[in-house]
C-alpha cells in the first residue's frame, strides 16, 4: 500500500538575510522512503533549505512538517527529539577534530543515550562505531585515528558512518561528492544509496553534481532564485523539458539562467 502522507512537507518557506531573499515560498513534499535530490547553482539556497529543516537557521515564514507535525512551532525539547531522528552528512564532513574517528562515529549514540538515560558503555559504543565504519567500507582499525589523518574520501565516509549510526528515519546529504575525484564520488554515492535502502530512510541530498544526483535520487527538484522551478523524476534530469533545468544540467553558458557577473 502506498502511504500518501509525505514524510517531509514544506509549505511557503521563506528566508531572507537582510535584503537578500534566499528562499521565496518553497513548497516541497518528500514521500517516505524516497530520495529527493535538490539541484541548483551556488548560492541558490540549497544549504539554507536543509538548515531551516534542521532548525540550524530560523525560517522567516512557512511550515515544515515532519510526519505531519510542524517542527517550526514545536517547543525546543520536542524539536530536539525530532532532530534526533535526522542524520546529516555535512559538505566538508564536519568531523570533530579533537576526537578520534570512532568517537566521532559514536558521538550521536552516546549523546542520545545520555538524553534517554540508557547510555551505552564506551566499549559498546566503540564496537558499534566499528560496525558502522565497516558498513561504509572502512576498516574498524581506522577508528583509532584522528580525522586529520584521513583523506577527503575517508572523511566523507566517516561522516556518513556518523550520520547513519543512530539509524535515522531521515538522512540529509549536503553536497556529498564535492571535492572528491569521480571514482571516489561514485563510491560515496553507492554507499549513500546502500545506507538509505538498508535503513529505509527518507533522504534529501543537495548537489550540483549531475552524475551524483542521478545515482542518489528517486526524485529531483531545482532551486533557482529562492524558488523551486521544477520537480520530477531524477532519471529525467537531463531531459526535463524545462529550459532552465536543461541549461543547468548540461552546463550551457547560454540560456534563460544568466549568471550575475560584474563586467
Amino acid at each position: 500500500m502506498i502511504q500518501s502522507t509525505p514524510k517531509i512537507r514544506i509549505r511557503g518557506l521563506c528566508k531572507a538575510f537582510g535584503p537578500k531573499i534566499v528562499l521565496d515560498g518553497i513548497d516541497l513534499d518528500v514521500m517516505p522512503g524516497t530520495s529527493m535530490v535538490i539541484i541548483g547553482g551556488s548560492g541558490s539556497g540549497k544549504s539554507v533549505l536543509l538548515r531551516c529543516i534542521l532548525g540550524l537557521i530560523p525560517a522567516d515564514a512557512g511550515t515544515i512538517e515532519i510526519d505531519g507535525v510542524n517542527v517550526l512551532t514545536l517547543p525546543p525539547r520536542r524539536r530536539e527529539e525530532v532532530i534526533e531522528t535526522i542524520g546529516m552528512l555535512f559538505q566538508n564532513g564536519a568531523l570533530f577534530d579533537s576526537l578520534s574517528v570512532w568517537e566521532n562515529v559514536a558521538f550521536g549514540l552516546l549523546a542520545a543515550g545520555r538524553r534517554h538515560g540508557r547510555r551505552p558503555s564506551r566499549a559498546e559504543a566503540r564496537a558499534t562505531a566499528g560496525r558502522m565504519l565497516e558498513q561504509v567500507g572502512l576498516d574498524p582499525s581506522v577508528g583509532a585515528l584522528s580525522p586529520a589523518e584521513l583523506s577527503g574520501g575517508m572523511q566523507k565516509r566517516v561522516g556518513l558512518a556518523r550520520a547513519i549510526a543512530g539509524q535515522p528515519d531521515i538522512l540529509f546529504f549536503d553536497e556529498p561528492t564535492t571535492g572528491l575525484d569521480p571514482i571516489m564520488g561514485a563510491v560515496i554515492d553507492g554507499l549513500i544509496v546502500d545506507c538509505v535502502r538498508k535503513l529505509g530512510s527518507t533522504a534529501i541530498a543537495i548537489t550540483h553534481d549531475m552524475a551524483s544526483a542521478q545515482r542518489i535520487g528517486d526524485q529531483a527538484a531545482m532551486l533557482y532564485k529562492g524558488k523551486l522551478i521544477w520537480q520530477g523524476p531524477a532519471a529525467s534530469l537531463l531531459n526535463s523539458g524545462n529550459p532552465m533545468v536543461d541549461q543547468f544540467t548540461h552546463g550551457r553558458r547560454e540560456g534563460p539562467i544568466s549568471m550575475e557577473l560584474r563586467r
Partner: protein
Amino acid sequence: MNAVLDFIAALGRAALNLVRTAGALTLFGLTALSHLVRPPFYWRIFFGALIEIGFFSLPVVALTALFSGGVIALQSYTGFAQYHAQGAIAGIVVLAVTRELGPVMAGLMVAGRVGAAMAAEIGTMRVTDQIDALTTLSTNPMKYLVTPRLLAGTIALPCLVLVADMLGVMGGFIVSVVKLDFSAPAYIAATFAAVKTIDVTVGLAKAAVFGFLITLMGCYHGYTSRGGAQGVGSATTAAVVAASILLLASDYLLTDVFFSQ
C-alpha cells in the same frame, strides 16, 4: 553640516553596537550558566579544560610571578633606600603580589594563552560546521562547548594565582636575600607580619572573576565568529583584547570595593 551629521551618526552606530554586543554577551553568559544546573554536564570536557587552563598555564604564570616579585623587590629597594625604609620591602612585595600582581599577571597570561586558544578552537568549529554538527547529534553546543570551559576557567585561575602568589613572594625573597643582603628569617617574619588572610582571599576572588571573564570572552568570540580563517583570526584577537580590558576594569572595580577605605 553633513560632516557633523555623519559624525553623530557614526557615534550613534558605535553606541548601538556596544549596547547590542553587551546584550548578546550577557545573554550568552546567562545561557551558559543556566546549563550548569541542567543535566547533562560534560565532565570530560570540563577536566580537559581544567588541565589546559590550570596545568599547562603553570610554567608561564610561575615564571611571570617569580620575575615580577623579584622586580618589585629591586625597584622598591631603589626607592626605599633613600628613606632608610628597606624594612618595608617584604611587606610591599607580599601585598603587591597577593592583592594585585598575582591575579592580574596570571589573568593576562591566561588571557593571552587560553583565551586565544579557546576562541580559535571554537571559531574553527563554527566555520567548519562542527557546531552545527553537534546540534544534529542531539548535543546542545552551549552545554557542550561553553559551560564546562566557563566553570573550568573560574576554578583554575584561583589555583594558578595561589601558586603565582607563592612564587612571586619567593622571587622577592630570593632577590632580597641573595642580591640585597637581607636576613632570610627577618624577611620571612616581615612577610607574614604584613600579609592578612583577606589580602590572599580577595586576590583569589579576583582570580575567579578573571577566569570567568577570560573564558567567557574566548567562548563568545569563537562561538560568534564568521567568515573562515580571517573571521577566526579576528575572533582570536578580539577575545584577547576584550578579556584584557575587562580584566583590568574589573580589577579596578573589585579593588575599589574591597580595599578602598
